């Protein structure tokens, strides 16, 4: 796994590993996902409405917003686990990967078998791909362990390894680092970023942690309201390889995202916060 150290110095060691800045591959041939006027309503007013969104190869798109604004619903719509009440979702990707809030591991399978499960179409490759993915998340030594013997953070890393082993074109991440400690989450953020660089995949990254979103994402869609809708779209002014080295600029971008979230909240909620 890449050695990663958070630092404030301009000559950040990260630059050696992420020299090529992440860039979105524009053009219709690189569009992996299109949502047009998507609406999904639930009892009690929750859900999403009027969602127009495109995701392109090579970009990490962050979805941010207050709790209950429909971030996870949006992912479930993309993953085809919910059907929209109105609007259209066009999927132009082959393989889909997803890191869930809970890792959803099967307790009767070892870490390796849980990861290999997503490659049953290529049984000859599945174990090798699983071992590689587990090594990438720092669990090479734990591949034969069962979920009950792993910590919460290790289980989540197995979930991330499973998503990487699937070799997806589009990777959905639903608050994937909420159960991880800071240093592990920074390492895994870097791993995801490298995967995007190497394979030009796209990532749809849902999180309520503005710091994570600002550090990882090239573009941030801020959602709010009930049902949730897109309130704002912000572009990260910093290239990937400068984000660790320019904490001041990164903090300003975080503030912009936070402001956009606050603008979407009811006035009373903003005052309380």
């Amino acid at each position, binding site marked *: 796994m890449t050695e990663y150290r958070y630092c404030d110095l301009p000559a950040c060691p990260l630059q050696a590993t992420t020299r090529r800045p992440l860039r979105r591959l524009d053009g219709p041939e690189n569009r992996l996902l299109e949502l047009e006027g998507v609406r999904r309503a639930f009892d009690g007013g929750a859900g999403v409405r009027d969602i127009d969104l495109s995701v392109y190869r090579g970009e990490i798109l962050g979805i941010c917003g207050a709790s209950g604004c429909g971030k996870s619903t949006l992912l*479930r719509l993309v*993953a*085809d*686990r919910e059907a929209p009440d109105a609007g259209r979702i066009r999927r132009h990707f082959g393989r*889909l*990967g*997803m890191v*869930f809030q*809970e890792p*959803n591991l*099967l*307790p*009767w*399978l070892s870490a390796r078998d849980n990861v290999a*499960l*997503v490659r*049953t179409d290529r049984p000859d490759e599945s174990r090798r791909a699983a071992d590689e993915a587990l090594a990438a998340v720092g669990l090479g030594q734990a591949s034969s362990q*069962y*979920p*009950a*013997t792993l910590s919460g953070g290790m289980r989540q890393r197995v979930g991330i390894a*499973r998503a990487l082993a*699937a070799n997806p074109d589009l990777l*959905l991440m639903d608050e994937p680092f909420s159960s991880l400690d800071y240093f592990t989450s920074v390492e895994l953020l870097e791993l995801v970023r490298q995967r995007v660089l190497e394979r030009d995949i796209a990532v749809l990254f849902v999180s309520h942690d503005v710091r994570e979103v600002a550090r990882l994402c090239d573009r941030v869609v801020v959602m709010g309201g009930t049902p949730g809708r897109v309130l704002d779209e912000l572009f990260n002014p910093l290239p990937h390889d400068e984000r660790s080295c320019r904490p001041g600029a990164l903090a300003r971008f975080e503030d912009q995202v936070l402001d956009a979230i606050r603008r979407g909240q009811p006035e009373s909620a903003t005052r309380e916060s």
Partner: protein
Amino acid sequence: MSSPRLHALLIPLGGVTGLVIGWWLLAQKVPGSILPGPGPVVSHLAAALSEIEIWKDTAVTLGNVMASFLIAVVGGTLLGLWASSSTVAERLLHPMVVVIEAAPTIAWLVLAILWLGLGAGPPILVGVSMALPLIVIATSHGLRQIDSGWMDMAHVYGLSTWTRLTRILLPSLALTLAGAASGALSVAWRGIIMAEAFSASHGLGPSLWGSYLYGEIRDVYAVILWIILLGLALEYLLVHPARQLIRRRLRHD
């Protein structure tokens, strides 16, 4: 032997001892033609076990029990899976399960003799009729309890129907099914012996009923004791270890 394991062994033994003492005390008050004491019954059973007939009858009954148990488990699991596949299937199957459950065992026996004639068929059908609903309900209930996150994962990664069945659904069901199978075996065991008594010429059922008809009361009690011992052996030597094994294999905790 560690203290908890010793306790686990001693407490059931205490229960059995209490039962035997109660039986002995009652036998002192009641004529031997109605309730012989434990001593004569045990010695009568020991003598019977030295003859080949009781072993042949035991093999016939165990064969009927295993046949009906296997049919109930395989059929019940498949029907439960089908019922859970759609609301229409569930609504279609539910009244049938209720009918099978509601019909008394004797009704099933009479119908089985009408349909299949005398022999091994009626006991097996009665056993299936008693065990199958338990397995269907357990399968259907177990499937409803499956973690929706696993099904989300299976959907996102496009797992095949076979992979979902063998890696997610059946392992998830195994524990629930193991519990239901224990109950199914127990009811099939009781139902089959009763059905054999009226419809078959071989097996523990005819042996028991024949002993009663000929007024061989010690034989009656000896066969009952043997049936109880076999039931306990099935539970503690087969069902319980299998359940423990499944629990260990599935949970790994």
